[in-house]
Protein backbone atom coordinates (compact mmCIF):
# COMPACT_ATOMS: atom_id res chain seq x y z
CA UNK A 1 0.00 0.00 0.00
CA UNK A 2 1.32 3.42 -0.88
CA UNK A 3 1.47 5.98 1.89
CA UNK A 4 1.05 9.66 1.29
CA UNK A 5 3.96 11.65 2.62
CA UNK A 6 2.90 13.87 5.45
CA UNK A 7 4.64 17.10 6.24
CA UNK A 8 4.17 16.44 9.91
CA UNK A 9 3.18 13.22 11.61
CA UNK A 10 -0.59 13.14 11.91
CA UNK A 11 -1.19 16.12 9.65
CA UNK A 12 -3.08 15.81 6.41
CA UNK A 13 -1.56 16.73 3.12
CA UNK A 14 -3.23 19.22 0.84
CA UNK A 15 -4.45 16.45 -1.48
CA UNK A 16 -5.82 14.49 1.41
CA UNK A 17 -7.60 17.55 2.81
CA UNK A 18 -9.19 18.21 -0.59
CA UNK A 19 -10.30 14.63 -0.92
CA UNK A 20 -11.70 14.59 2.57
CA UNK A 21 -13.72 17.70 1.85
CA UNK A 22 -15.25 16.23 -1.30
CA UNK A 23 -15.87 12.89 0.38
CA UNK A 24 -17.52 14.41 3.45
CA UNK A 25 -19.77 16.51 1.24
CA UNK A 26 -20.81 13.33 -0.55
CA UNK A 27 -21.35 11.49 2.75
CA UNK A 28 -23.58 14.27 4.03
CA UNK A 29 -25.99 13.61 1.22
CA UNK A 30 -26.59 10.10 2.56
CA UNK A 31 -29.42 9.81 5.08
CA UNK A 32 -27.71 9.00 8.39
CA UNK A 33 -24.35 9.35 6.64
CA UNK A 34 -22.66 10.68 9.78
CA UNK A 35 -22.82 7.23 11.30
CA UNK A 36 -19.54 6.53 9.57
CA UNK A 37 -18.05 7.89 12.80
CA UNK A 38 -19.43 4.97 14.73
CA UNK A 39 -17.43 2.22 13.04
CA UNK A 40 -16.08 -0.27 15.57
CA UNK A 41 -13.93 -2.11 13.01
CA UNK A 42 -15.65 -5.41 13.68
CA UNK A 43 -15.37 -6.61 10.10
CA UNK A 44 -18.96 -7.75 9.72
CA UNK A 45 -19.08 -5.86 6.41
CA UNK A 46 -16.08 -7.69 5.01
CA UNK A 47 -17.42 -11.01 6.24
CA UNK A 48 -20.83 -10.40 4.65
CA UNK A 49 -19.50 -9.14 1.33
CA UNK A 50 -19.78 -11.76 -1.43
CA UNK A 51 -16.95 -10.13 -3.39
CA UNK A 52 -14.54 -9.04 -0.64
CA UNK A 53 -12.30 -11.95 -1.59
CA UNK A 54 -11.57 -10.16 -4.86
CA UNK A 55 -10.89 -6.76 -3.29
CA UNK A 56 -7.47 -5.28 -2.60
CA UNK A 57 -8.85 -3.22 0.29
CA UNK A 58 -11.72 -4.75 2.27
CA UNK A 59 -14.82 -2.72 3.23
CA UNK A 60 -13.65 -2.56 6.85
CA UNK A 61 -10.25 -1.31 5.75
CA UNK A 62 -11.88 1.39 3.61
CA UNK A 63 -13.29 3.03 6.72
CA UNK A 64 -10.07 2.57 8.67
CA UNK A 65 -8.06 4.18 5.88
CA UNK A 66 -10.43 7.10 5.57
CA UNK A 67 -10.08 7.81 9.29
CA UNK A 68 -6.35 7.50 9.13
CA UNK A 69 -6.18 10.14 6.41
CA UNK A 70 -5.40 7.74 3.60
CA UNK A 71 -8.24 8.50 1.21
CA UNK A 72 -5.69 8.77 -1.52
CA UNK A 73 -4.83 5.10 -1.12
CA UNK A 74 -8.51 4.26 -1.52
CA UNK A 75 -8.76 6.39 -4.66
CA UNK A 76 -6.17 4.16 -6.30
CA UNK A 77 -7.70 0.87 -5.25
CA UNK A 78 -9.97 -1.37 -7.30
CA UNK A 79 -12.14 -2.37 -4.34
CA UNK A 80 -14.79 0.28 -4.64
CA UNK A 81 -15.42 -0.67 -8.26
CA UNK A 82 -16.03 -4.33 -7.44
CA UNK A 83 -18.90 -3.49 -5.10
CA UNK A 84 -22.08 -4.68 -6.81
CA UNK A 85 -24.19 -2.77 -4.27
CA UNK A 86 -26.01 -5.78 -2.85
CA UNK A 87 -26.28 -4.03 0.53
CA UNK A 88 -25.38 -7.14 2.55
CA UNK A 89 -22.89 -5.08 4.60
CA UNK A 90 -25.34 -2.23 5.11
CA UNK A 91 -28.06 -4.44 6.54
CA UNK A 92 -25.71 -6.21 8.91
CA UNK A 93 -23.54 -3.36 10.20
CA UNK A 94 -24.06 -3.24 13.98
CA UNK A 95 -23.32 0.48 13.95
CA UNK A 96 -25.88 1.18 11.25
CA UNK A 97 -23.33 2.52 8.76
CA UNK A 98 -24.57 2.70 5.18
CA UNK A 99 -21.44 1.11 3.80
CA UNK A 100 -22.81 0.66 0.28
CA UNK A 101 -23.69 4.34 0.12
CA UNK A 102 -20.28 5.23 1.57
CA UNK A 103 -18.75 3.29 -1.31
CA UNK A 104 -20.96 5.21 -3.75
CA UNK A 105 -19.67 8.40 -2.14
CA UNK A 106 -16.11 7.17 -2.66
CA UNK A 107 -16.86 6.42 -6.31
CA UNK A 108 -18.23 9.91 -6.82
CA UNK A 109 -15.16 11.34 -5.10
CA UNK A 110 -12.91 9.52 -7.56
CA UNK A 111 -15.03 10.73 -10.47
CA UNK A 112 -15.05 14.31 -9.21
CA UNK A 113 -11.29 14.37 -8.64
CA UNK A 114 -10.65 12.63 -11.95
CA UNK A 115 -8.37 9.95 -10.54
CA UNK A 116 -7.22 7.22 -12.81
CA UNK A 117 -8.86 4.07 -11.56
CA UNK A 118 -7.52 0.56 -11.38
CA UNK A 119 -10.73 -0.70 -12.92
CA UNK A 120 -11.33 1.79 -15.74
CA UNK A 121 -13.87 -0.50 -17.36
CA UNK A 122 -16.37 0.37 -14.62
CA UNK A 123 -16.15 4.06 -15.41
CA UNK A 124 -16.44 3.26 -19.11
CA UNK A 125 -19.64 1.36 -18.42
CA UNK A 126 -20.99 4.06 -16.10
CA UNK A 127 -20.27 6.78 -18.67
CA UNK A 128 -21.83 4.82 -21.52
CA UNK A 129 -24.85 4.05 -19.35
CA UNK A 130 -25.33 7.75 -18.72
CA UNK A 131 -24.84 8.61 -22.40
CA UNK A 132 -27.34 5.96 -23.36
CA UNK A 133 -29.87 7.31 -20.90
CA UNK A 134 -29.29 10.87 -22.08
CA UNK A 135 -29.73 10.00 -25.75
CA UNK A 136 -32.90 7.96 -25.47
CA UNK A 137 -34.35 8.40 -21.99
CA UNK A 138 -34.42 4.65 -21.69
CA UNK A 139 -31.66 2.12 -21.63
CA UNK A 140 -31.01 0.19 -24.79
CA UNK A 141 -28.97 -2.78 -23.61
CA UNK A 142 -27.76 -3.74 -27.08
CA UNK A 143 -26.19 -0.35 -27.76
CA UNK A 144 -24.68 -0.22 -24.28
CA UNK A 145 -23.02 -3.63 -24.50
CA UNK A 146 -21.82 -3.10 -28.08
CA UNK A 147 -20.21 0.25 -27.26
CA UNK A 148 -18.75 -1.11 -24.02
CA UNK A 149 -16.92 -3.95 -25.70
CA UNK A 150 -15.85 -1.72 -28.57
CA UNK A 151 -13.99 0.31 -25.97
CA UNK A 152 -12.72 -2.43 -23.69
CA UNK A 153 -11.98 -5.36 -25.97
CA UNK A 154 -13.62 -5.70 -29.33
CA UNK A 155 -12.86 -9.41 -29.69
CA UNK A 156 -15.11 -10.26 -26.80
CA UNK A 157 -17.96 -8.94 -28.87
CA UNK A 158 -17.76 -11.96 -31.17
CA UNK A 159 -18.38 -14.19 -28.18
CA UNK A 160 -21.83 -12.65 -27.95
CA UNK A 161 -22.98 -13.87 -31.35
CA UNK A 162 -24.59 -17.10 -30.04
CA UNK A 163 -26.36 -15.14 -27.29
CA UNK A 164 -27.62 -12.52 -29.72
CA UNK A 165 -28.87 -15.28 -31.99
CA UNK A 166 -30.74 -16.91 -29.12
CA UNK A 167 -32.24 -13.61 -28.14
CA UNK A 168 -33.39 -13.03 -31.68
CA UNK A 169 -34.97 -16.47 -31.84
CA UNK A 170 -36.85 -15.96 -28.60
CA UNK A 171 -38.00 -12.48 -29.69
CA UNK A 172 -36.00 -10.79 -26.97
CA UNK A 173 -33.79 -8.66 -29.15
CA UNK A 174 -34.61 -4.98 -29.51
CA UNK A 175 -32.66 -4.00 -32.60
CA UNK A 176 -33.06 -0.26 -32.36
CA UNK A 177 -33.19 2.06 -29.39
CA UNK A 178 -36.45 3.86 -28.76
CA UNK A 179 -36.56 7.44 -27.60
CA UNK A 180 -39.13 8.64 -25.07
CA UNK A 181 -41.59 11.28 -26.25
CA UNK A 182 -40.67 13.95 -23.73
CA UNK A 183 -37.00 13.50 -24.34
CA UNK A 184 -36.39 17.24 -24.48
CA UNK A 185 -38.03 17.83 -21.15
CA UNK A 186 -35.90 15.09 -19.57
CA UNK A 187 -32.77 16.74 -20.96
CA UNK A 188 -33.83 20.06 -19.45
CA UNK A 189 -34.35 18.37 -16.06
CA UNK A 190 -30.92 16.80 -16.24
CA UNK A 191 -29.25 20.03 -17.28
CA UNK A 192 -30.84 21.88 -14.40
CA UNK A 193 -29.87 19.14 -11.93
CA UNK A 194 -26.28 19.36 -13.12
CA UNK A 195 -26.32 23.10 -12.51
CA UNK A 196 -27.70 22.57 -9.02
CA UNK A 197 -25.09 19.95 -8.29
CA UNK A 198 -22.34 22.41 -9.21
CA UNK A 199 -23.73 24.97 -6.77
CA UNK A 200 -22.68 22.73 -3.93
CA UNK A 201 -19.12 22.53 -5.13
CA UNK A 202 -17.10 25.28 -3.47
CA UNK A 203 -14.94 27.21 -5.90
CA UNK A 204 -11.73 26.94 -3.98
CA UNK A 205 -11.17 25.25 -0.70
CA UNK A 206 -8.98 26.76 1.93
CA UNK A 207 -6.22 24.52 3.15
CA UNK A 208 -5.81 24.49 6.88
CA UNK A 209 -3.56 21.70 8.08
CA UNK A 210 -5.66 19.39 10.11
CA UNK A 211 -5.03 16.32 12.16
CA UNK A 212 -6.18 13.03 10.75
CA UNK A 213 -8.55 10.73 12.60
CA UNK A 214 -11.81 11.74 14.16
CA UNK A 215 -11.07 15.41 14.45
CA UNK A 216 -11.65 16.07 10.78
CA UNK A 217 -15.12 14.64 11.17
CA UNK A 218 -16.11 17.44 13.51
CA UNK A 219 -17.60 19.43 10.64
CA UNK A 220 -20.33 16.88 10.15
CA UNK A 221 -23.72 17.16 11.73
CA UNK A 222 -23.52 15.33 15.01
CA UNK A 223 -25.37 12.14 15.74
CA UNK A 224 -28.75 12.88 14.29
CA UNK A 225 -30.70 9.66 14.68
CA UNK A 226 -32.82 10.09 11.58
CA UNK A 227 -33.27 7.12 9.38
CA UNK A 228 -33.18 4.63 12.20
Amino acid sequence: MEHATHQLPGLMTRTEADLREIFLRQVESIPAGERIKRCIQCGTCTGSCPVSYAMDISPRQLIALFRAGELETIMRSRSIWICASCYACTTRCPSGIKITDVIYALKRTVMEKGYESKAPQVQVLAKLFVDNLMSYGRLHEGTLIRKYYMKTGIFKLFGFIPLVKKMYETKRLALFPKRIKEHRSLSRIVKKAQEIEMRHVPEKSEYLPEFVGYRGLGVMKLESRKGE
Partner: protein
Amino acid sequence: MTVRYAYYPGCSLEKTQRGYDESVREVFKALEQELVEIDDWNCCGATMYMSVKETVSLAVSARNLALAEKMGLEILAPCSSCFTTLSKTNRILKEIPEMHRDVNEALAEGGLSYSGKVRVRHPLDILMNDIGLETVRARFQRNLNGLKIAPYYGCQIVRPDKTFDDRENPMLLDRLFGACGGDVVYFPMKVRCCGGMLMTTFEETALKLNKELLECALNNHADVMVTTCPLCHFNLEAYQGKINNFYKTTYNVPIMYFTQLLGIALGLPAKSLGLDSSFIPLGGKINSLAEAHYA
Protein backbone atom coordinates in the same frame (compact mmCIF):
# COMPACT_ATOMS: atom_id res chain seq x y z
CA MET B 1 -61.44 -5.76 -5.28
CA THR B 2 -59.90 -4.13 -8.27
CA VAL B 3 -57.02 -1.84 -7.50
CA ARG B 4 -55.23 0.22 -10.12
CA TYR B 5 -51.48 0.55 -10.18
CA ALA B 6 -49.16 2.80 -12.14
CA TYR B 7 -47.14 0.16 -13.93
CA TYR B 8 -43.43 0.87 -14.35
CA PRO B 9 -41.97 -1.97 -16.44
CA GLY B 10 -38.43 -0.62 -16.67
CA CYS B 11 -36.02 -0.97 -19.57
CA SER B 12 -35.21 -4.69 -19.37
CA LEU B 13 -38.83 -5.73 -19.31
CA GLU B 14 -39.59 -3.89 -22.52
CA LYS B 15 -37.96 -6.52 -24.67
CA THR B 16 -35.03 -8.54 -23.37
CA GLN B 17 -36.99 -9.84 -20.39
CA ARG B 18 -40.42 -9.89 -21.97
CA GLY B 19 -41.26 -13.08 -20.06
CA TYR B 20 -41.39 -11.11 -16.84
CA ASP B 21 -43.45 -8.29 -18.34
CA GLU B 22 -45.96 -10.62 -19.96
CA SER B 23 -46.37 -12.82 -16.90
CA VAL B 24 -46.79 -9.88 -14.51
CA ARG B 25 -49.50 -8.41 -16.73
CA GLU B 26 -51.28 -11.77 -17.10
CA VAL B 27 -51.14 -12.68 -13.41
CA PHE B 28 -52.44 -9.31 -12.34
CA LYS B 29 -55.20 -9.50 -14.93
CA ALA B 30 -56.18 -12.94 -13.67
CA LEU B 31 -56.34 -11.57 -10.14
CA GLU B 32 -58.45 -8.64 -11.37
CA GLN B 33 -55.96 -5.90 -10.67
CA GLU B 34 -55.55 -3.16 -13.21
CA LEU B 35 -52.15 -2.07 -14.43
CA VAL B 36 -51.93 1.30 -16.16
CA GLU B 37 -48.52 1.81 -17.71
CA ILE B 38 -46.97 5.15 -16.81
CA ASP B 39 -47.02 7.15 -20.01
CA ASP B 40 -43.56 8.04 -21.27
CA TRP B 41 -41.63 6.75 -18.26
CA ASN B 42 -37.84 6.99 -18.39
CA CYS B 43 -35.02 4.77 -17.17
CA CYS B 44 -34.71 4.87 -13.37
CA GLY B 45 -30.93 5.13 -13.62
CA ALA B 46 -30.36 1.81 -11.88
CA THR B 47 -27.31 1.35 -9.69
CA MET B 48 -24.86 2.61 -12.29
CA TYR B 49 -26.15 6.09 -12.24
CA MET B 50 -25.76 6.70 -8.54
CA SER B 51 -22.03 6.46 -8.91
CA VAL B 52 -21.85 9.46 -11.18
CA LYS B 53 -23.87 12.42 -9.99
CA GLU B 54 -26.26 12.38 -7.11
CA THR B 55 -28.67 15.24 -7.79
CA VAL B 56 -28.91 14.23 -11.43
CA SER B 57 -29.61 10.59 -10.67
CA LEU B 58 -32.27 11.53 -8.13
CA ALA B 59 -33.94 13.91 -10.57
CA VAL B 60 -33.95 11.31 -13.35
CA SER B 61 -35.53 8.74 -11.10
CA ALA B 62 -37.94 11.26 -9.51
CA ARG B 63 -39.39 12.13 -12.92
CA ASN B 64 -41.12 8.75 -12.87
CA LEU B 65 -42.40 9.31 -9.35
CA ALA B 66 -43.77 12.68 -10.42
CA LEU B 67 -45.54 11.11 -13.40
CA ALA B 68 -47.11 8.48 -11.14
CA GLU B 69 -48.18 11.14 -8.69
CA LYS B 70 -50.13 12.86 -11.45
CA MET B 71 -51.95 9.57 -11.97
CA GLY B 72 -52.70 9.36 -8.26
CA LEU B 73 -51.64 5.71 -8.07
CA GLU B 74 -49.03 3.54 -6.38
CA ILE B 75 -46.16 2.42 -8.58
CA LEU B 76 -45.78 -1.24 -9.43
CA ALA B 77 -42.14 -1.96 -10.30
CA PRO B 78 -41.35 -5.64 -10.99
CA CYS B 79 -37.62 -5.11 -11.70
CA SER B 80 -35.73 -5.31 -8.41
CA SER B 81 -33.29 -2.67 -9.47
CA CYS B 82 -36.01 -0.19 -10.46
CA PHE B 83 -37.84 -1.02 -7.25
CA THR B 84 -34.81 -0.23 -5.11
CA THR B 85 -33.78 2.85 -7.05
CA LEU B 86 -37.25 4.39 -6.95
CA SER B 87 -37.69 3.51 -3.25
CA LYS B 88 -34.30 4.90 -2.42
CA THR B 89 -35.06 8.15 -4.23
CA ASN B 90 -38.26 8.43 -2.21
CA ARG B 91 -36.37 7.88 0.99
CA ILE B 92 -33.61 10.38 0.30
CA LEU B 93 -36.10 13.05 -0.74
CA LYS B 94 -38.06 12.45 2.44
CA GLU B 95 -35.08 12.54 4.76
CA ILE B 96 -33.05 15.33 3.21
CA PRO B 97 -35.33 18.33 2.56
CA GLU B 98 -32.58 20.29 0.76
CA MET B 99 -32.30 17.46 -1.73
CA HIS B 100 -36.07 17.40 -2.20
CA ARG B 101 -36.03 21.11 -2.94
CA ASP B 102 -33.15 20.72 -5.42
CA VAL B 103 -34.85 17.85 -7.21
CA ASN B 104 -38.11 19.75 -7.48
CA GLU B 105 -36.28 22.72 -8.90
CA ALA B 106 -34.86 20.44 -11.60
CA LEU B 107 -38.22 18.75 -12.24
CA ALA B 108 -39.85 22.16 -12.71
CA GLU B 109 -37.80 22.53 -15.91
CA GLY B 110 -39.87 19.68 -17.30
CA GLY B 111 -43.12 21.10 -15.94
CA LEU B 112 -43.28 18.52 -13.15
CA SER B 113 -43.17 18.47 -9.39
CA TYR B 114 -43.15 15.73 -6.79
CA SER B 115 -44.51 15.90 -3.26
CA GLY B 116 -42.91 12.65 -2.09
CA LYS B 117 -46.10 10.72 -1.52
CA VAL B 118 -46.07 7.95 -4.10
CA ARG B 119 -45.56 4.45 -2.74
CA VAL B 120 -43.30 2.13 -4.71
CA ARG B 121 -44.42 -1.49 -4.65
CA HIS B 122 -43.12 -4.82 -5.83
CA PRO B 123 -45.56 -7.38 -7.32
CA LEU B 124 -44.59 -9.96 -4.67
CA ASP B 125 -45.53 -7.50 -1.95
CA ILE B 126 -48.90 -6.77 -3.53
CA LEU B 127 -49.67 -10.44 -4.16
CA MET B 128 -48.90 -11.53 -0.62
CA ASN B 129 -49.74 -8.51 1.50
CA ASP B 130 -52.54 -6.71 -0.35
CA ILE B 131 -54.34 -9.41 -2.28
CA GLY B 132 -53.35 -12.03 0.27
CA LEU B 133 -52.36 -15.65 -0.02
CA GLU B 134 -55.89 -16.87 0.75
CA THR B 135 -57.38 -14.98 -2.20
CA VAL B 136 -54.58 -16.12 -4.52
CA ARG B 137 -54.92 -19.68 -3.28
CA ALA B 138 -58.62 -19.68 -4.10
CA ARG B 139 -57.71 -19.04 -7.76
CA PHE B 140 -55.28 -21.94 -8.11
CA GLN B 141 -56.20 -24.18 -11.01
CA ARG B 142 -53.24 -26.45 -11.07
CA ASN B 143 -51.23 -28.17 -8.38
CA LEU B 144 -47.49 -27.84 -8.86
CA ASN B 145 -47.26 -31.50 -7.91
CA GLY B 146 -44.20 -31.40 -5.72
CA LEU B 147 -42.09 -29.50 -8.25
CA LYS B 148 -38.82 -28.73 -6.45
CA ILE B 149 -38.37 -24.98 -6.38
CA ALA B 150 -35.36 -22.94 -5.26
CA PRO B 151 -36.68 -19.49 -4.31
CA TYR B 152 -34.09 -16.87 -5.22
CA TYR B 153 -34.94 -13.42 -3.91
CA GLY B 154 -31.68 -11.69 -4.81
CA CYS B 155 -30.57 -8.52 -3.09
CA GLN B 156 -32.54 -5.53 -4.09
CA ILE B 157 -36.09 -6.34 -3.11
CA VAL B 158 -35.24 -7.04 0.50
CA ARG B 159 -32.32 -4.67 0.97
CA PRO B 160 -31.17 -2.06 1.95
CA ASP B 161 -34.30 -0.92 3.75
CA LYS B 162 -36.70 -3.16 5.50
CA THR B 163 -39.28 -3.34 2.77
CA PHE B 164 -41.90 -6.04 2.84
CA ASP B 165 -40.04 -9.15 3.86
CA ASP B 166 -37.18 -10.20 6.09
CA ARG B 167 -33.75 -9.07 4.93
CA GLU B 168 -31.85 -12.23 5.86
CA ASN B 169 -34.47 -14.89 5.45
CA PRO B 170 -37.41 -13.70 3.36
CA MET B 171 -40.29 -16.17 3.20
CA LEU B 172 -42.92 -14.77 0.83
CA LEU B 173 -41.87 -16.84 -2.21
CA ASP B 174 -41.55 -19.92 0.00
CA ARG B 175 -45.07 -19.45 1.29
CA LEU B 176 -46.53 -18.64 -2.11
CA PHE B 177 -45.15 -21.71 -3.86
CA GLY B 178 -45.63 -23.95 -0.86
CA ALA B 179 -49.32 -23.09 -1.12
CA CYS B 180 -49.37 -24.00 -4.85
CA GLY B 181 -48.29 -27.54 -4.06
CA GLY B 182 -44.65 -26.91 -4.90
CA ASP B 183 -41.85 -28.38 -2.84
CA VAL B 184 -39.80 -25.34 -1.87
CA VAL B 185 -36.31 -26.67 -1.22
CA TYR B 186 -33.82 -25.51 1.37
CA PHE B 187 -31.97 -22.69 -0.33
CA PRO B 188 -29.63 -20.88 2.04
CA MET B 189 -28.35 -18.58 -0.70
CA LYS B 190 -31.76 -17.04 -1.29
CA VAL B 191 -30.52 -13.48 -0.73
CA ARG B 192 -26.93 -13.88 -1.93
CA CYS B 193 -25.94 -11.41 -4.65
CA CYS B 194 -25.65 -12.57 -8.28
CA GLY B 195 -23.12 -9.85 -9.05
CA GLY B 196 -25.43 -7.76 -11.20
CA MET B 197 -23.45 -5.58 -13.59
CA LEU B 198 -20.22 -7.29 -12.53
CA MET B 199 -20.96 -9.80 -15.27
CA THR B 200 -19.86 -7.07 -17.65
CA THR B 201 -17.08 -5.43 -15.64
CA PHE B 202 -15.59 -8.23 -13.52
CA GLU B 203 -16.71 -11.30 -15.38
CA GLU B 204 -14.77 -13.93 -13.45
CA THR B 205 -16.08 -12.71 -10.11
CA ALA B 206 -19.65 -12.74 -11.38
CA LEU B 207 -19.27 -16.19 -12.91
CA LYS B 208 -18.16 -17.50 -9.53
CA LEU B 209 -21.11 -15.92 -7.72
CA ASN B 210 -23.61 -17.40 -10.18
CA LYS B 211 -21.92 -20.78 -10.18
CA GLU B 212 -22.29 -20.93 -6.40
CA LEU B 213 -25.98 -20.11 -6.67
CA LEU B 214 -26.64 -22.81 -9.26
CA GLU B 215 -24.57 -25.30 -7.29
CA CYS B 216 -26.52 -24.58 -4.12
CA ALA B 217 -29.84 -25.03 -5.94
CA LEU B 218 -28.72 -28.32 -7.47
CA ASN B 219 -27.27 -29.67 -4.23
CA ASN B 220 -30.72 -29.21 -2.79
CA HIS B 221 -32.27 -31.04 -5.76
CA ALA B 222 -34.14 -28.09 -7.25
CA ASP B 223 -35.92 -28.63 -10.58
CA VAL B 224 -36.21 -24.91 -11.16
CA MET B 225 -34.99 -21.63 -9.73
CA VAL B 226 -37.48 -18.79 -9.48
CA THR B 227 -36.28 -15.19 -9.54
CA THR B 228 -37.77 -11.76 -8.99
CA CYS B 229 -35.18 -9.72 -10.87
CA PRO B 230 -34.33 -9.37 -14.59
CA LEU B 231 -30.61 -9.03 -13.94
CA CYS B 232 -30.41 -12.12 -11.72
CA HIS B 233 -32.44 -13.94 -14.33
CA PHE B 234 -30.16 -12.90 -17.16
CA ASN B 235 -26.96 -13.72 -15.27
CA LEU B 236 -28.20 -17.13 -14.19
CA GLU B 237 -29.80 -18.09 -17.47
CA ALA B 238 -27.92 -16.51 -20.35
CA TYR B 239 -24.51 -17.03 -18.74
CA GLN B 240 -25.11 -20.60 -17.64
CA GLY B 241 -23.32 -21.89 -20.74
CA LYS B 242 -20.35 -19.68 -19.99
CA ILE B 243 -20.28 -20.91 -16.40
CA ASN B 244 -20.25 -24.46 -17.70
CA ASN B 245 -17.35 -23.70 -20.01
CA PHE B 246 -15.40 -21.92 -17.32
CA TYR B 247 -15.93 -24.40 -14.50
CA LYS B 248 -16.29 -27.55 -16.60
CA THR B 249 -19.75 -28.14 -15.18
CA THR B 250 -22.92 -29.37 -16.85
CA TYR B 251 -25.56 -27.20 -15.27
CA ASN B 252 -28.88 -27.06 -17.02
CA VAL B 253 -31.09 -25.40 -14.47
CA PRO B 254 -34.27 -23.75 -15.76
CA ILE B 255 -34.71 -20.21 -14.45
CA MET B 256 -38.23 -18.80 -14.23
CA TYR B 257 -39.77 -15.59 -13.04
CA PHE B 258 -41.94 -16.16 -10.01
CA THR B 259 -44.88 -14.70 -11.91
CA GLN B 260 -44.41 -17.28 -14.67
CA LEU B 261 -44.62 -20.19 -12.27
CA LEU B 262 -47.49 -18.56 -10.44
CA GLY B 263 -49.22 -18.11 -13.79
CA ILE B 264 -48.98 -21.85 -14.39
CA ALA B 265 -50.50 -22.51 -10.98
CA LEU B 266 -53.29 -20.08 -11.84
CA GLY B 267 -53.93 -22.11 -14.99
CA LEU B 268 -52.94 -19.39 -17.43
CA PRO B 269 -51.83 -20.46 -20.93
CA ALA B 270 -48.06 -20.98 -21.24
CA LYS B 271 -47.80 -18.71 -24.24
CA SER B 272 -49.28 -15.71 -22.48
CA LEU B 273 -46.67 -16.07 -19.73
CA GLY B 274 -43.76 -15.68 -22.13
CA LEU B 275 -42.48 -19.18 -21.37
CA ASP B 276 -41.36 -19.43 -25.00
CA SER B 277 -38.69 -16.83 -24.24
CA SER B 278 -36.67 -19.13 -21.98
CA PHE B 279 -33.19 -20.11 -23.18
CA ILE B 280 -32.99 -23.23 -21.07
CA PRO B 281 -35.64 -25.88 -21.74
CA LEU B 282 -38.03 -25.85 -18.82
CA GLY B 283 -37.83 -29.59 -18.40
CA GLY B 284 -40.43 -32.32 -18.37
CA LYS B 285 -42.06 -31.53 -15.07
CA ILE B 286 -42.76 -27.89 -15.78
CA ASN B 287 -43.74 -28.52 -19.38
CA SER B 288 -46.22 -31.17 -18.44
CA LEU B 289 -47.72 -28.80 -15.88
CA ALA B 290 -47.98 -26.02 -18.43
CA GLU B 291 -49.22 -28.23 -21.25
CA ALA B 292 -51.70 -30.18 -19.19
CA HIS B 293 -53.72 -27.02 -19.26
CA TYR B 294 -54.47 -27.37 -22.96
CA ALA B 295 -55.53 -30.98 -22.64
